[in-house]
């Protein structure tokens, strides 16, 4: 018997109707009579399921429909078509039991009151979510411990740094022990150390509580560290759903050869290197990096070793963020926007 998924999307679709108006008085007057609108398809029939306890990376360039999808799953947006179920509920009905089972963390939003210590806001969340007091104390102390908040929660929130505040925000979002976490850019604007801390925390939390996590991030390090599985959407449509390693295999068309020369080779100018592959190093130190087509990698490596005095050579997969960049650079399909006149 297969495990019942926690999140199910079936052909989920969201179309925004936005007014179109050219500049100028004449256009303004015309729009009084016949308002012209345009339909923007933000999410175009996306389907996937997420099993309990999974941490899934949800990727896509800006405007791909990630946040719109998360907002539909958290219950903030009504879809235009299709269906979705989270924890057995239709999210946009915003059943109170559903809301007590999820959380949506957005890197750019504050729910903590500015003028009072985070601890007071935590207590307010306890009352909002009706968490029994003993359970609240336990969860709160655990979160304070896991996120290292003990010195921060007693200060007014306005005195905290961005990273400290974000950690408190995350704790506040989890006091009701939700089993589904929607994390939208949780590490946005944080320094590397803080990013790493939050990453480690998300992993530990998911393990400890068996929580399901759907995570978007612009930092591929977040995704690499946390997500075995990734879902890529682009122009509102599902582009890829599978293992992170499979994504690299499928979309990466090149490998990188790094080499060092044992002695100077004057005749190797830019044009001469181009015969082997594309130079992607900055040319400042002795390390030379070449991007070569995956299929010809072995042959080119052979030629390099045969013709040049090479002291060191390594072949690497293309870094994940570069792969993602290539994926995102794919052209827009023609179905993504449709114009309509109403």
């Amino acid at each position, binding site marked *: 018997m297969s495990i019942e998924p926690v999140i199910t999307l079936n052909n989920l679709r969201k179309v925004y109707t936005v007014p179109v108006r050219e500049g100028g008085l004449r256009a303004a007057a015309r729009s009084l009579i016949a308002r012209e609108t345009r339909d923007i398809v933000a999410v175009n029939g996306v389907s996937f399921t997420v099993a309990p306890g999974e941490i899934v990376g949800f990727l896509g360039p800006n405007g791909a429909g990630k946040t719109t999808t998360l907002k539909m799953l958290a219950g*903030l947006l009504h879809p235009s078509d299709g269906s979705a179920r989270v924890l057995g509920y239709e999210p*946009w009905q915003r059943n109170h039991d559903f*809301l007590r089972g999820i959380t949506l963390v957005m890197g750019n939003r504050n729910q903590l*009151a500015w*003028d*009072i210590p985070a601890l007071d806001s935590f207590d307010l969340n*306890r*009352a*909002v979510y*009706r968490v029994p007091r003993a359970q609240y104390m336990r969860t709160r102390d655990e979160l304070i411990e896991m996120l290292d908040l003990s010195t921060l929660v007693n200060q007014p929130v306005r005195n905290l740094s961005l990273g400290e505040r974000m950690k408190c925000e995350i704790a506040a979002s989890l006091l009701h022990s939700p089993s589904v976490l929607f994390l939208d850019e949780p590490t946005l604007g944080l320094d590397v150390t803080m990013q790493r801390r939050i990453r480690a925390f998300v992993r530990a939390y998911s393990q400890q509580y068996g929580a399901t996590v759907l995570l978007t991030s612009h930092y591929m390090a977040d995704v690499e560290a946390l997500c075995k599985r990734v879902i890529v959407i682009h122009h509102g449509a599902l582009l890829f759903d599978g293992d992170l390693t499979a994504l690299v295999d499928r979309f990466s068309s090149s490998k990188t050869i790094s080499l060092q020369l044992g002695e100077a080779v004057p005749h190797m100018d830019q044009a001469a290197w181009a015969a082997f592959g594309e130079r992607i190093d900055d040319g400042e130190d002795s390390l030379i990096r070449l991007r070569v087509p995956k299929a010809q990698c072995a042959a080119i490596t052979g030629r390099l070793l045969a013709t040049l005095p090479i002291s060191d050579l390594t072949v690497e997969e293309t870094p994940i963020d570069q792969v993602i960049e290539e994926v995102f650079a794919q052209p827009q399909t023609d179905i993504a926007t449709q114009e309509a006149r109403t």
Partner: protein
Amino acid sequence: MTALRSLGSLGDYYRVKLKTDLAIEMQYRGAMLIWLIGAVLEPLVFLAVWSAAAAAQGGAIDGLTSHDFAAYFIASLVVNQLTFSWVMWEFEHYIREGELAADLLRPIHPIHQDICENWAHKLLTMTVVIPAVILLSLVFEPAWHFEAWSLLAFLPALLFAFALRFLFDWTLALIAFWTTRTASANQLAQTVFLFFSGRLAPLSLFPPVLVTISFILPFRWMLAFPIELILGQLTPAQALWGMAIQLGWIAAILLLMRFVWRVAIRRFSAVGG
């Protein structure tokens, strides 16, 4: 049983939220003081004008002496302070800045937090309003004619007046879902209120047609009714009738609010949060 537990949880929320809001309010003592000066000054101006007018007419207008006016506007100061709200001025910001979206994700209706914020502000401002009332009473020597029963009846009437006015303002605030120009709608409502609630002058001084209209509109029941009650101008029957009308209005506006809220949220979640 579940309903009782639910009520208990809501009570717990109100307790914690009030405590939190009081703590926040205390951080803004300066702003509160400025706000309060305005709240005291407005009825003071009306009082000065009407007292002067009464003096010019030989001591009384329609039988109301300057001491009666003093009682009226001091009572008006207290009742207005306890029943006013500001939600309709903040709602637009509340929707556009994404705070509403955050609140929609919480398993509690957002009106509860507005009520708590309102009460926290009032609890705190009372510490200044009460001394102000005492001071004004010493200066203007108001003439009070209330009896024990009307003082007692004043409390539920005041509570109903608050509920009615708050629900009215909250429903009015929902206009912000449809237009970004809520200020003009608020201004209009404010002006009608000023006139028909008895804030500007005792309604008994108005021409009969306007008095009749004031009985039909909800505004009298938000302010003038509790004032008249504490001034001892009403009979027990009138007091009971008044409270029944208040409750009728509360029920009607509550229904309207729930309907408009549902439509507004559907619209909000269609166009994006």
